[in-house]
Each structure stands twice: as C-alpha cells, then as structure tokens.
C-alpha cells in the first residue's frame, strides 16, 4: 500500500533515548539507547513482551517519564528540554490512550465532563463551544452524545469505555497519539470494532500513531512500519509486510512462530525458545537476546549489535540475521 507523501522531517524523532528506574540500590534498564522516527501520517507499531520497555518508551516520548539521556524531537522541537508551560502547550498536540479503558475514566464523573476536561485545561472558556466539540467527537467515535453525555462510566461496557477514551484523546485535535495496548483488555469481537475505529479516526483527523501492543497480528493490522523491542533495545524495524514475511532478527522470528494460529492444519511447532527473558536489572552483555538465541556465539556476548539495514527500509540489530 502506498504511503502519503512523507515529508523529509519526521514528526517524531527519538534519538538514543535512555530511561532507567531506581529499585533500591539497583537500576532497572528499561530503555537503553532507542532511536526511531515516525513520519507524519504514519503508524509505527511497537511490539515486545511484558517488561521489554515498550510502555516506558511510550511514556518517555510524552515526557510522562523523563529520560536519563537522549532526545525526543517532536516537529523539530526537543521535548526533553521543555518544562512547565511550554511542555503543557506541546502536550495538546500529543495524546495517550491506555490499555484499561474502565480504569482510565473517573467513575464519579459524567461522560460529557470527562471528554470536556482537556478543553477546560487548555483554556476554552466558552461552554457552548466546549459542548459542541464534545458532541462532535462523541459522534465521531460512534456514540450518541445525547444518550451518553449525562451517564457515568460504569453504565458502559469495556468497548464503549475505550470509545470514550478515544473521544477524550481526540477532542483537542492532536497530531500524534500514543496508543498503549488499546485493545488488549477487550474481547475479540469488540477488539475488531476498536481497531477499525482507530484506523477511521486516523484517516479522518490526519493522525500519526505510535501503536504499542504485544500481539503481532493486532500490530500488523494497523501499522505501516513495525519496531520490535526486547529488554530495552530495538531488535528490528521495518515495513510491516516485509518484517512479517521475512523477519531478520531471530527474536522476531521466534515471536512469529509462537503465535497460536486459528487453523488446526497448522500444527503448533514445538517451541524452540526455551527460557524466559533475563531481568532488566542485570541485562546480558552484548546482544540482550543472546541468552535465548539459538544462533548466539562469542561475538554476541562481546559486542552490542547495532541496527543496520538488512533489506531496503528493514533494519536489524543482529550479528547473525536470519537469511
């Protein structure tokens, strides 16, 4: 599928970002030098297993978690250097959608007020104007404003709550949204509705998305490009179709192989990956995936593999990429 004409300057440019957490006298290496770019109008999928740092990366992009080093350039401006009012102003252009739609809505407030809150914070004082925008955005996400605006979150199902969260994230007309596992708490039949809605909203409002999820098929359904993360580092980045058809990093290959396929004629391969991810408190030297990798050798423990172009647009950080 052809992309919209991509402007030379990416909307988001994450440059060598490092995020660490303190844990007693230990350090959790959550994100260890990640660089990526997202073009205007593009959806970049970010996949990885729990604890790989994908949510931390998403939050660090929005400055909800400050980085130890590195830069986050949004539309050319470095968010990591911004504070106070400047950052608040910038935040109107970037939004976040969370995994648990019910927990992210205040149970005591009415839907109309929840969706209007960002407008109040951004200083829109005209109540009629606020109401107009809330109604418009609720209709856009497939809810009837007259029926829902005066009700409270517990009257809605998970799928409907996620629609409300999406409405709230859209009400300020943002340019960029970080979607952190937006459908993983939803049932299959509802998940499809929400994924379709996100695609529709993206086209309608000209959004750029960073779509974080652990489910590769879900990520592929909405992403132009996909980045695979393991234990704080990127393993592989590339165009969705290409990356899924020809994974270059052994970890991407392993993830693809582990997905249960809803087809009984596809016999599940005996899982090749033994073991579990090591702790991000003491990540392995060299390539962080080497402890589970069938291809690992001496070089992998001595030398950190850099992302390099394996095929046009496809980059992998591996000394022994898959053919």
């Amino acid at each position, binding site marked *: 599928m052809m992309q919209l004409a991509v402007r030379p300057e990416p909307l988001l440019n994450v440059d060598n970002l490092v995020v660490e957490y303190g844990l007693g006298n230990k350090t959790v290496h959550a994100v260890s030098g990640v660089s990526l770019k997202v073009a205007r109008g593009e959806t970049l999928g970010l996949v990885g297993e729990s604890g790989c740092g994908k949510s931390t990366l998403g939050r660090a992009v929005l400055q909800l978690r400050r980085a130890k080093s590195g830069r986050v350039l949004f539309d050319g401006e470095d968010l990591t250097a911004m504070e106070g009012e400047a950052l608040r102003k910038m935040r109107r252009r970037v939004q976040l959608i969370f995994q648990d739609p019910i927990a992210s809505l205040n149970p005591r407030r009415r839907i109309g007020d929840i969706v209007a809150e960002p407008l109040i914070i951004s200083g829109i004082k005209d109540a009629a104007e606020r109401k107009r925008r809330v109604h418009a955005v609720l209709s856009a996400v497939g809810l009837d404003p007259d029926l829902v605006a005066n009700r409270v979150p517990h009257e809605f199902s998970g799928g409907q709550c996620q629609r409300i969260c999406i409405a709230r994230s859209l009400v300020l007309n943002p340019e960029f949204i970080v979607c952190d596992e937006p459908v993983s708490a939803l049932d299959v039949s509802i998940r*499809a509705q929400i994924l379709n809605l996100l695609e529709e909203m993206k086209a309608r409002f000209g959004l750029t998305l960073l779509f974080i999820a652990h489910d590769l098929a879900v990520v592929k359904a909405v992403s132009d490009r996909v980045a695979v993360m393991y234990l704080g580092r990127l393993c592989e980045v590339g165009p969705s179709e290409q990356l899924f058809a020809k994974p270059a990093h052994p970890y991407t290959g392993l993830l693809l192989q582990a997905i249960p396929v809803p087809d009984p004629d596809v016999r599940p391969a005996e899982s090749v990956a033994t073991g579990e991810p090591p702790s991000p408190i003491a990540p392995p030297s060299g390539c962080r995936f080497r402890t589970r990798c069938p291809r690992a050798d001496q070089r992998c423990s001595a030398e950190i593999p850099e992302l390099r172009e394996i095929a046009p647009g496809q980059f992998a950080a591996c000394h022994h990429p898959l053919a």
Partner: protein
Amino acid sequence: MSALLLTIEDVAVELPTPRGNLRAVDHVDLSLEAGRTLGIVGESGCGKTMLSRAVLQLLPKKAKLTGRVMFDGQDLVRLAPERLRRLRGRDLAVVFQDPMTSLNPVLTIGTQLVETIQEHLELDTPAARKRSIELLAAVGIPAPEQRLAQYPHQCSGGMRQRIAIAIALSCEPKLLIADEPTTALDVTIQAQILDLLAREQRRRHMAMIIITHDLGVVAGRADEVAVMYAGRVVERAPTQALFRRMHMPYTEALLAAIPKLETAPHTPLPAISGRPPDPTRPLRGCSFAPRCRYAGPRCHEAKPELKGAEMPGHLYACFHPIRMTERIGA
C-alpha cells in the same frame, strides 16, 4: 460410548443479582472421553468459566445449579462434600489463569506441593519431597531442589504457572481443567506452557478441558471444540471439522474478527457489531440473532436447539446454518 469420563447433562447455573437472576450457564450438555482434550471457547461473560466451576463444584454459594455432572460414574452435583474434597486435587485437577492467586504467597513451593501430595496419596514426607522434585523437573523448572525452598513471589509468571501445573499433576488426575492457563503470559511463554500441557497429557493419558477466548489456542491442541455464547453451547464439533466448515454464524464471525498475520496492514476487520445480550433479561429467540447478519424473523422468536448436521459429532444451534452445501475438500 463406554469410555466417557465426564458427561455434563443439562447443566444450568443461575446467579442472583440486584437486577434479577443472571443466566450464567443456560442448559449445557457436553461429554469428554478419557485421555481426550475438549476446548471451550467464548468471549468474556459467555459462561465458560462458570461451566467449569459447575464441574468442579466450586460455584459461588448463592449460585443455583441444576442438571447432572457425571464424572467417573458419580454425579458430582449430589456427591457429599467430604467425598468431593477427596476427589478434587486427586482425580479432578484445575489450573487457573492467574498463578499468583492460586498459589499461597506465604508458603514455600515445597510446602504447597508436599501438602497436596500427602493430602491425597499415602506418602511420607521424604517420598513426597522426592516426588515434588520430579514433578518440578517434569514441568521444566531448572534446579527444582532449590525451588522447593522458595516462595511464589520469587518466581516469574511463567514459572508460577509451571508450578501450578506441577501441583495439578501431582496426584495423576484423570481430568485437568485449564481455565485460560496462558492468558496472563507472554506469547513465547504461552507456547512453552501449552506444549508442556500437551506433553504431560499424552504421557499421563489424562483428559483435559482447555477454556480460552482464543480460537488459536484450541485449534492445534484440542480434539473437540465447543463454542459458547451467552451461556449456551452454540456449536460443537471435532476440531478439524469445525475449522473446515463452521455452521454457526457466531463461530464464523468470531474467527473472522481475529486479526491475521497473513492479512495486509490497514485492511478493515470484519467486526461483529453490537455486543452480547444482557444475561439478566429473558430472551425468546437465538441469543446471537441481534448481531447476526443471517438472522430472519424466526431467529427472534424461537431458540434453536443444538442439533446434528450431516457430519457425525458436529452440532450447531442455528436456523440458518452456513456452509451446509459445500463439499468437504480432500
């Protein structure tokens, strides 16, 4: 049909709620032979977990259960609590979704294993310890002897689920009920746990019920699949037959709604519109009719029975079954 280990006969479960009685399980019949695997698939609230609780006789106190659950020749519904207690854990074992809630956080792994073994088998402590170590090794836990002295919080999620499986297997059960055993786990760990369950099942000739929301999990691993919707079994068939030719529109829609790896990015998903019916409200017709694109007037008036197609063992509850005329491909 003499080898039936479990038959669920006309089981219904109702739960009282402030809004009226909730039909959690709406007259379900199922059976399972020794050594076989039954997959029960459905979305949240379809009654799959309540059905498994009915088999285990672990329903909430206020729940009203009718019907029979015949296990190994006895009706569990009418069994005395003491005999039931001896059966559960020994012949009838269960693995839950969240291993952290099924393991006791203040007891060591060794204590929990040894306790279960000694409760049901006549073994002294050293023999029970030895058996515990063997079990932990069998479920793929490195350095099992050291693990015995550890507490659940010292283990990862995958390790805890392996331990929960070791406890479930400890008395050589005839039936293992695995209720969303891998839903809380990462995909690479999920594959390992499903392999482990399949391997131990073959080795022990144990029957298994896998309860899941993921058709992918049952596709390669169950002999037979029952699809549940709004408390009822709406389609039931040998796995191969089901995936080759699903007759119930809900099953088809559920499969279609799953994002597939083969599909190109930005392809709209065939979503199922609407949502399941309110289980506290009486429903005259087919429970899927309001969301079904094949539904006709009759579907809103009468409940379709679960009945046989022309293929043996393939049952569906639908007035307008799909794919009835196609020939089965070679």
